[in-house]
C-alpha cells in the first residue's frame, strides 16, 4: 500500500510539474499586463505539433541517439513556439494596448480559435502520435509494493525543474529579468526610466511560449499522442494552477501546478476518479475564499 501511495504521489508530481510549466505563461502575462492570455493553451498545442515535426525531421536526417534527438527537438520547438508567442502579442495585444481591457481578451480568444483551426486544416483532424523515445522504467521495491518510474517521467521531472530554475535565474539576476520586474511593478514609470516596455512585453510572451513549448515536448514524449484540440483541457488546468498559486507569481504557478496535479492524482487514487475535477475545483474555491490572492500571490494594493 505504501508503494501505491508513493506511486500516486509521483504520478501527481509529474502531471503537476507539467501544469506548472504551462501555468507560467498565464502568470507572467497576467503579471505584466494584467490580462489573461486565452491563446496560451493553443500555444502549447502548437508546440506539440512542432515537437513531432522536429522529431520526424531529425529522424529523417538519421539522428537516432536520444540526447541529440531531444536536444534538437527542444531547441527547435522552443525557438519556433517563441516566435508564435511573439506574433500573438504583435497581432492580438499590441494594437489594442490602449483600448478597453476586455478587447485583448476577445482578440486572444480569436487567436486561440485561429490556431486550433490552423492546426486542424494544415495537419489534419486526426490524432497524431510520436514513437516512444525513451523506453524502460525504474522499479523500486518499497515494503510490500513497488514504485514504477518510467525514464520518461524522471526526465520530465528533471527537465521541468531545470526549466523553472533557469527562468527564476533569468528573472532574478539578469538585466532582462530586472526590466520585466520593473515593468510589472509600474509600466508607466518603467518606460519613463528608459525601459522599452513594449519590447519587455514581447519578451514575456516569448518566455511564456517557450515554457509552454518545454511542456509540449515533455508531454508529447510522455503520452505520445495529441490532436489540435489538446490545448483546451490542459490550458484550463494550467490556468487553474496559476490562479491557485497566485496569478502573477512565478513560484506560485509551479506550486499551484504541483498542488493541482497531486490533489487530482491522490483523489482519483484514493477515492474516485469520476469526481477528481470536482475535488480540485472545490479546493480552488476554498483557497480563494481564504486567500483571494492565491497561495503566493501578493494582495492587490490600490495604487495612488
Amino acid at each position, binding site marked *: 500500500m505504501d508503494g501505491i501511495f508513493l506511486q500516486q504521489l509521483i*504520478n501527481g508530481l509529474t502531471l503537476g510539474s507539467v501544469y506548472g510549466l504551462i501555468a507560467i505563461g498565464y502568470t507572467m502575462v497576467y503579471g505584466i499586463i494584467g490580462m489573461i492570455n486565452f491563446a496560451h493553451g493553443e500555444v502549447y498545442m502548437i508546440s506539440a505539433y512542432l515537437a513531432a515535426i522536429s522529431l520526424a525531421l531529425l529522424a529523417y536526417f538519421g539522428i537516432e541517439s536520444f540526447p541529440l534527438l531531444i536536444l534538437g527537438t527542444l531547441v527547435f520547438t522552443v525557438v519556433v513556439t517563441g516566435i508564435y508567442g511573439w506574433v500573438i502579442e504583435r497581432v492580438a495585444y499590441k494594437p489594442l494596448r490602449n483600448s478597453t481591457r476586455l478587447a485583448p481578451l476577445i482578440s486572444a480568444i480569436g487567436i486561440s480559435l485561429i490556431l486550433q483551426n490552423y492546426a486542424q486544416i494544415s495537419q489534419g483532424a486526426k*490524432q497524431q*502520435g510520436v514513437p516512444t523515445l525513451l523506453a524502460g522504467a525504474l522499479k523500486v521495491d518499497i515494503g510490500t509494493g513497488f514504485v514504477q518510474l518510467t525514464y520518461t517521467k524522471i526526465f520530465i521531472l528533471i527537465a521541468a525543474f531545470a526549466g523553472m530554475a533557469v527562468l527564476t535565474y533569468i528573472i532574478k539576476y539578469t538585466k532582462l529579468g530586472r526590466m520585466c520586474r520593473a515593468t510589472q511593478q509600474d509600466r508607466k514609470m518603467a518606460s519613463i526610466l528608459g525601459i522599452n516596455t513594449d519590447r519587455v512585453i514581447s519578451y514575456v510572451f516569448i518566455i511564456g511560449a517557450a515554457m509552454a513549448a518545454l511542456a509540449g515536448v515533455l508531454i508529447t514524449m510522455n*503520452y*505520445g*499522442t495529441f*490532436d489540435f*484540440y489538446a490545448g483546451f483541457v490542459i490550458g484550463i488546468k494550467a490556468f487553474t494552477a496559476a490562479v491557485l498559486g497566485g496569478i502573477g507569481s512565478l513560484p506560485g504557478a509551479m506550486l499551484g501546478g504541483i498542488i493541482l496535479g497531486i490533489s487530482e492524482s491522490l483523489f482519483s487514487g484514493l477515492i474516485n*476518479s469520476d469526481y477528481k475535477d470536482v475535488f480540485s475545483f472545490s479546493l480552488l474555491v476554498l483557497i480563494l475564499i481564504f486567500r483571494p490572492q492565491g497561495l503566493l500571490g501578493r494582495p492587490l494594493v490600490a495604487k495612488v
Partner: protein
Amino acid sequence: MSQTFYKKGFLALAVSAALGVSAFAQADIKFGVAGPMTGANASFGEQYMRGAQAAADEINAKGGVNGEKIVLVKGDDACEPKQAVAVANRMVDQDKVAGVVGHFCSSSTIPASEVYSDAGVIAITPGSTNPAVTERGLSAMFRMCGRDDQQGIVAGDYIVDVLKGKKVAVLHDKDTYGQGLADATKAQLTKRGVTPVLYEGLTRGEKDFSAVVTKIRAAGADIVYFGGLHPEAGPLVRQLREQGLKDVKFMSDDGIVTDELVTTAGGPQYVDGVYMTFGADPRMLPESKAVVEQFRKSGYEPEGYTLYAYASVQTLAAGFTGAKSTKGEDAAKWLKANAVKTVMGEKTWDAKGDLKVSDYVVYQWDKDGKYHQLEKQK
C-alpha cells in the same frame, strides 16, 4: 376587369414557374451524413464519408432513387451533443435532407434524432450502439449496428468464459456510449458471478490516466475492460504497460475500431493483445467482396464503419425506392416490413428500428497493429 384577368394570369404564371423550379430542383434527393468529421474522433467521420460516398456513387450509377440522384450533405458534430443538434437543424431546415446517415457518438445521435423525428426525416446510424437510441418510440430511427446491451453480454461472457477473468476492472469515459456499455458489461459480469473489483470513469480529452492505472494495480486486477473511444483507450493501455502491468489483459469495444488506436497508444507494441468487441467483420462477407476490392483499388482500406455507412445509404435508398415516396415515414414503414440486401448481407429491422439479428464477435489486435476476428467461441 381585363386588368384583374391579367393579374390572375400573371399570378398563375408565376406560380407555375415556381412549381417548375421546385420540380426541377427535386431531381436530387439529399442524404445527410453526420458524424465527427473533425475532433478527436474524426477518423470515424472519415470512415462514414468514404462509405456513404461510395454507396451513393454506385446507386447513382444504377439510376438513383426513384430516378433521382443522391446528393450527400456532410454534417460535422465533432461528437458534441450541442453541435449535433445544430447540425441536425441545419440539415432539416436548410438542406432539406430526405434521410440522414448518422450520427456516431450515441450522445450526439440521441438529441439529433429528436430533431429528425419532429421533421419526419428518417435517420439510420451506422455506429451508435446505446440502447436509448431506439428506445424512445421514434418511428423513423434505425440502426445498422447492434446495441450495447447485446455487446456488453458478448464482452462479459468472453471475459468469464474465455479469458477466465477473476478480478475485472471496469472503466468508462463518462459518456452516454462508453458508460452505457461499461454498465451493460458490468451487469453481465455480475450476473455470471464476477463482481468487478473497480468501476471508475475517466475524463474525455485528458491524457494522463496514471492515477487510475495505479489504482488498477492496487486492486490487483487481471483484466481491464474499457467502455469508450480510442483517444482515451490508447493512452490508457500504454500507461498500463508502462506501470509494469504487462500481463493484465485489456478489452474494449467498437469505439476503438480504427488504425488510430495504434497512434494514440504510441506504437503497435502497446496494442498487441488488446481485445475488442465489434460486429462480425463485413469485409469477410461474400456480399461485400466487390465493394471491398473497389475500395482497396482506390488505396483505401474499408475498415471499421466504412461498410456500415455504405450499407446505411443502401438502406435509405432501398426504403425510399421501396415505398416510392420521399417521405421519411413511408420509407420507415417499408423498412420495418421488408428485408434489404446490403453490402453487409440481408438485413431486417424490428418495430423499434433495431436489427433483428446482431452479430457481435471478439477481435484481437496483434503486434503489427492490425486487428482480426478471433475464431467463434463455443
